[in-house]
């Protein structure tokens, strides 16, 4: 059976591909779109996905990390077209860090951002992956509100569903 680390890396890889598809689908002029005045803009929310991979993988590697420290190589790109390539680079660096872990590391407890001591396995799944999926779900709504078509993520998106229905209707007529 695949090790937990392999399973994590495989799942993360699949989700990162969907993230790239969404980043590429953001309308070119949507960077500063901010439907909730107290919330993140499209550009800020998109880059938060890269920040999550970078900060949390470095926390895992170092055993603790002060989130107020500015990490090198993480300056937020200032245009939509630069978000996907930027995420791709930051994600690949994060994967390399996680790949260096061993099976024994996964049960080791390290200090999470909230000060709690958590096993590395739980930080990988919850701190990196679920947190990422959560904010990507938010970004998929912002993409729609900005006039874009968010690609299907766990199933067909709206346009694909309509196309499937139309295909079924024409096949049965």
């Amino acid at each position, binding site marked *: *059976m695949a090790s937990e680390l392999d399973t994590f890396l495989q*799942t993360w890889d699949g989700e990162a591909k969907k993230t790239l598809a969404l980043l590429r689908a953001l309308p070119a002029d949507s960077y500063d779109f901010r439907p909730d005045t107290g919330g*993140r803009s499209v550009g800020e929310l998109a880059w938060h996905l890269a920040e999550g991979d970078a900060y949390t993988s470095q926390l895992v590697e170092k055993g603790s990390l002060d989130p107020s420290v500015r990490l090198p190589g993480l300056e937020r790109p200032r245009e939509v077209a630069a978000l996907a390539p930027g995420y791709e680079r930051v994600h690949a660096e994060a994967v390399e860090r996680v790949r260096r872990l061993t099976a024994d590391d996964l049960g080791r407890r390290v200090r999470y951002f909230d000060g709690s001591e958590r096993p590395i396995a739980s930080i990988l799944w919850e701190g990196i*992956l679920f947190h990422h999926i*959560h904010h*990507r779900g938010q970004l*998929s*709504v*912002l993409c729609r509100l900005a006039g874009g078509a968010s690609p299907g993520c766990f199933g067909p998106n709206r346009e694909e569903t309509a196309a499937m229905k139309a295909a079924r209707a024409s096949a049965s007529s």
Partner: protein
Amino acid sequence: MTIAESLLQELDQETQTTRRVLERVPNDKLDWRPAPKARTLGQLALHIATVPGAVASLVAAPSPVQAPTFVDPAPQSAAELLPALAASVAKARELVGGLDDAAITAPWTMMSGNRELFTLPRIAMLRSIMLNHWYHHRGQLSVYLRLLGVAIPSIYGPSADENPFA
């Protein structure tokens, strides 16, 4: 711990978070949608409430299974949401809890009529569709709530717009 037990532990923990989000859905805004073709607040919230049990029912069934027809029912009242979540999670616990490691890693096939759509180990479906897909929609719901001026609870860290990385 079996694979199922470990998944159910995650399900239990995430159910608590999901409950905290669903209980904030305002009853007088169920028909609101952020864009003309988007799911309404009620549809999205009920979808989230029912995902675990619905996915577990499909995945725990003998393979192959027929692809379901997707419908987006809307609740009559926000008071339906928490009981629907409780029933859905109870069903998922029962069905997933009944899968031993052999069954949960066995290939599982979804069909459309006579055509095979895909074959995956059951665990991959549960990981992706019962859980990850659930978090995705809960993230979407958090935007709906914000746009309606509803304060949202902490989900994976401090909520609101405290960006620890800024």
